[in-house]
């Protein structure tokens, strides 16, 4: 808290503590503490921050996917009235290198640009339009270089190199069981997944405020404050105590805010001009300003017995990482170790590659490496069912993992793995009635009036998938929580302080519920998220309820021990609990008011909490306990397809998911609904079209995400098989729905049309037979 004193002043819209009068504990569904502000329009997002004397920053980006920079002339831009600064790589005081896993990316391009949209220069001016116009006057002399745009060709020895070290980011190998085994039934498929965008609605934005101590305060929408801070410190050449980050309001994330966007740029401009600098991307810039989901090319093969039981699985997966690594190595980790799906394989051969190209950089997005592979393993599972004459449900029940099963890295699944139950559950849910064509709005094409039912065929598809929860492969994955219990206005109040990012998912509600549960108080204040407390780790990998939830629980327990020890001394009693703002005996007898036990002396504890450690996998065999927890989900999609026009109406999208224990059942449902929509979007419509390294559709006019007309009603079965190793038995919830929904939709369209459809998104021209 002492760091606050160095701040000269706070912007309008700087976050304040969140609290409300709700009383929900774990297992309840209390309202979110930021909800009222969000429905009145008063909740301040990063793009709403404002200071009297602030100026606006913009980014000049490369128009070319690969070029040498011969020279940059900032003179005309700097001479523009209203412009305060024009900066290039030459103005970077520290190390010009950022990156989540390897710092292979310059903060501002130096010498060469490796993708269209790479930041080259920065401009600050007193009006955003003046800054934009001035940026156009920066003269950059480019010499075009050959573009590496094909992820498979990038691995050839004669390919031009994107980086000096070559184009391979990571090759993950799995060799398990008999590598020469044969099987009586063999099915194989090539599969391709396009590049999906997170398309969070709140564009990248933030405000950097220069501080009197020579440091900077950055208010920003992000997913992991501390990993941002580390990278910004490197570039600014400042120690962490001089680079203070506060989480501003976040308009969605879905992985797209794991890497830096405007963070370091706004800090550079603020420190250079001595003025607060606000940067807000527009939607077009947002498409260039964050990483996307890796496109994938995959070749899968299953060998099986005549009854459908798997004998072996083989997969080659190539992820196009684009120009910089971002989290490509970890995506390869997931795609490789989890990419064969939730099935038992006696023998496995997997080669999973992440490669550099001059395409847009790709990194984290909800489902992280599992989404792509799921389209292949589920498509092939249907082919296996058809090949052996089994039902698509039956072949999944037969081969699905169960608790105690060994996955393809040799790790034993040591909590629930209800694959068969999940797929059965969705199969047993009622099917929607056949459409009579009486209401145009329920037809493919809707009120465009393209069909009244003629040429429309119905299909049903199934998918079951799994995903790791938390960070893997030996990563030191932890979160920090500081919990304070004190008397405020004659009432016991708990304050929870973590740096774990609330991006909309509802972590702050969960933090309140845990504190109420553990401390028996009603009033819980959530401190603004900032770097004045230790790292909360990333809001990704479906990990925050588990890991930051675990940290808050542990910190509350530490506070409770101290308080009860104090009470025990005063009361001369043992075996006490906290409940309803009272100190109570085990038998329920009220012994004291918590207010009286606390008195004038608050109790505060800070705890760093870790889940069970994971291991690096063997580089040659891929064997090892790579992951800490697995989450399973299944979907059934029902579609009506106009096979003549290729238009699809998803009629129903039903799901079953094991969530371990639902700490907030309403929020769990919200995650499942929203995650399912994103998976459906990838199956049907969402793709960043890239040709020769250029993005062709950087707008919401041309990059389509599902609307309320596209999204069908959902029936949702939530299973709660508590994980004995996790706090309260929780299992991560956010990602599984995005993994299993898309493959179910694709399977349903294949069933309706009889077409192989081995690429997603499936567009009308694929269904209508206009392209291969």
């Amino acid at each position: 808290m002492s760091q606050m004193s160095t701040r000269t002043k706070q912007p309008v819209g700087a976050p304040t503590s969140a609290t409300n009068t709700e009383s929900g504990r774990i297992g309840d569904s209390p309202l979110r503490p930021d909800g009222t502000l969000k429905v009145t329009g008063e909740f301040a997002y990063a793009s709403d921050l404002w200071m009297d004397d602030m100026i606006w920053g913009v980014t000049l980006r490369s128009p070319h996917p690969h070029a040498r920079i011969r020279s940059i002339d900032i003179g005309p831009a700097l001479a523009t009235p209203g412009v305060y600064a024009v900066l290039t790589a030459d103005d970077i005081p520290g190390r010009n290198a950022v990156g989540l896993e390897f710092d292979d990316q310059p903060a501002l391009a130096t010498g060469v640009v490796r993708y269209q949209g790479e930041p080259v220069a920065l401009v600050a001016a007193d009006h955003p339009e003046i800054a934009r116009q001035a940026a156009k006057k920066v003269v950059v002399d480019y010499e075009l270089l050959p573009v590496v745009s094909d992820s498979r060709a990038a691995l050839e020895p004669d390919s031009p190199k994107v980086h000096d070290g070559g184009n391979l980011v990571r090759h993950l190998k799995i060799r398990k069981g008999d590598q020469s085994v044969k099987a009586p039934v063999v099915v194989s498929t090539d599969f391709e997944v396009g590049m999906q965008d997170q398309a969070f609605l709140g564009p990248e934005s933030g405000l950097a405020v220069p501080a009197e101590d020579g440091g900077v305060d950055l208010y920003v929408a992000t997913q992991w404050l501390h990993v941002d801070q580390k990278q910004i410190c490197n570039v600014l050449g400042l120690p962490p105590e001089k680079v203070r980050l506060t989480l501003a309001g976040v308009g969605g994330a879905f992985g797209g805010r794991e890497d830096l966007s405007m963070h370091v740029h706004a800090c550079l401009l603020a420190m250079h001009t001595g003025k607060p600098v606000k940067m807000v991307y527009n939607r077009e810039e947002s498409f260039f300003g964050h990483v996307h989901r890796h496109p994938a090319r995959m070749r899968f093969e299953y060998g099986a017995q005549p009854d459908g039981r798997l004998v072996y699985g083989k997969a080659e997966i190539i992820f196009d990482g684009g120009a910089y690594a971002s989290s490509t190595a970890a995506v390869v980790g997931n795609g490789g170790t989890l990419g064969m799906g939730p099935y038992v394989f006696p023998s496995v051969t997997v080669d999973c590659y992440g490669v550099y190209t001059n395409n847009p950089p790709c990194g984290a997005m909800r489902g992280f490496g599992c989404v792509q592979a799921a389209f292949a393993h589920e498509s092939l599972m249907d082919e296996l069912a058809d090949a052996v004459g089994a039902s698509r449900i039956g072949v999944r029940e037969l081969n699905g993992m169960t608790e105690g099963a060994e996955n393809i890295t040799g790790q034993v699944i040591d909590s629930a793995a209800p694959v068969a139950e999940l797929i059965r559950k969705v199969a047993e849910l009622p099917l929607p009635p056949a459409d009579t064509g009486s209401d145009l709005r329920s037809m493919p094409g809707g009120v465009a009036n393209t069909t009244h039912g003629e040429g429309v065929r119905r299909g049903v598809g199934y998918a079951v998938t799994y995903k790791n929860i938390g960070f893997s492969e030996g990563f030191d994955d932890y979160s920090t929580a500081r919990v304070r219990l004190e008397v405020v206005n004659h009432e016991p109040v708990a304050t929870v302080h973590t740096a774990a990012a609330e991006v909309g998912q509802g972590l702050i509600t969960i933090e309140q519920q845990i504190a109420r549960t553990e401390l028996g108080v009603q009033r819980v204040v959530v401190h603004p998220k900032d770097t004045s407390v230790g790292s909360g780790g990333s809001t990704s990998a479906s990990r925050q309820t588990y890991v930051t939830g675990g940290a808050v629980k542990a910190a509350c327990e530490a506070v409770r021990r101290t308080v009860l020890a104090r009470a025990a001394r005063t009361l001369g009693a043992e075996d006490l609990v906290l409940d309803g703002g009272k100190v109570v005996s085990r038998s329920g007898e009220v012994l004291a008011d918590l207010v009286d036990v606390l008195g004038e002396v608050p109790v505060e504890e800070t705890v760093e909490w870790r889940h069970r450690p994971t291991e690096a996998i063997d580089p040659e065999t891929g064997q090892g306990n790579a992951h800490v927890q697995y989450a399973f989900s299944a979907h059934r999609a029902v579609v009506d397809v106009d096979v003549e026009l290729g238009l699809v109406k998803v009629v129903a999208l039903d799901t079953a998911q094991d969530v371990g224990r639902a700490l907030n059942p309403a929020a769990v449902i919200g995650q499942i609904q929203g995650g399912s929509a994103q998976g459906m979007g990838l199956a049907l419509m969402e793709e960043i079209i890239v040709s020769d390294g250029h993005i062709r559709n950087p707008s919401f006019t041309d990059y389509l995400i599902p609307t309320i007309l596209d999204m069908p009603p959902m029936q949702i079965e939530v299973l709660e098989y508590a994980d004995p190793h996790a706090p309260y038995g929780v299992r991560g919830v956010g990602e599984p729905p995005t993994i299993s929904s898309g493959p179910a939709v694709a399977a349903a369209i294949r069933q309706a049309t009889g077409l192989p459809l081995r690429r997603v998104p499936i567009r009308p021209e694929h269904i209508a037979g206009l392209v291969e």
Partner: protein
Amino acid sequence: MRITTTVNGDRQDVDDVWEGESLLYVLRERMGLPGSKNACEQGECGSCTVYLDGTPVCACLVAAGQAQGRDVVTVEGLAPDTGQHDDLHPVQQAFLECGAVQCGFCTPGLLVASHDLLRRNPHPSDPEIREALAGNLCRCTGYEKILDAVRVAADKLDGAPA
């Protein structure tokens, strides 16, 4: 240029507006009303939906000058002005209670669009709700709880003046 409008019932005069600025920019950056959101700034997402003389519009597509002398209502003007901080319009209350708000960036636009729908059609069917809200993108919720919220708001408003 100078713009004079009525926003949420109050007269607003702003000076030095550049002709290229949108109504959205003027509301957010010059009038201190950032509730209307800037998610696409090309009329695709509906996050900036406001009433202009009683008609819902994308404020990003309205040039600031077009708002001269007209009446604007934003998300900040939906709640009854009783001086109580927590007083919400039934549509706002329903979005909050139904969990229709996650990140909330689409919420201001959806609230105005839902408010307009229920004004025109107090008892909309599900297809009518979907049609009315088709111009508002949400990336978090999958829309199910937004449908719930509009149904609940319709019930709350039943018999009450909208």
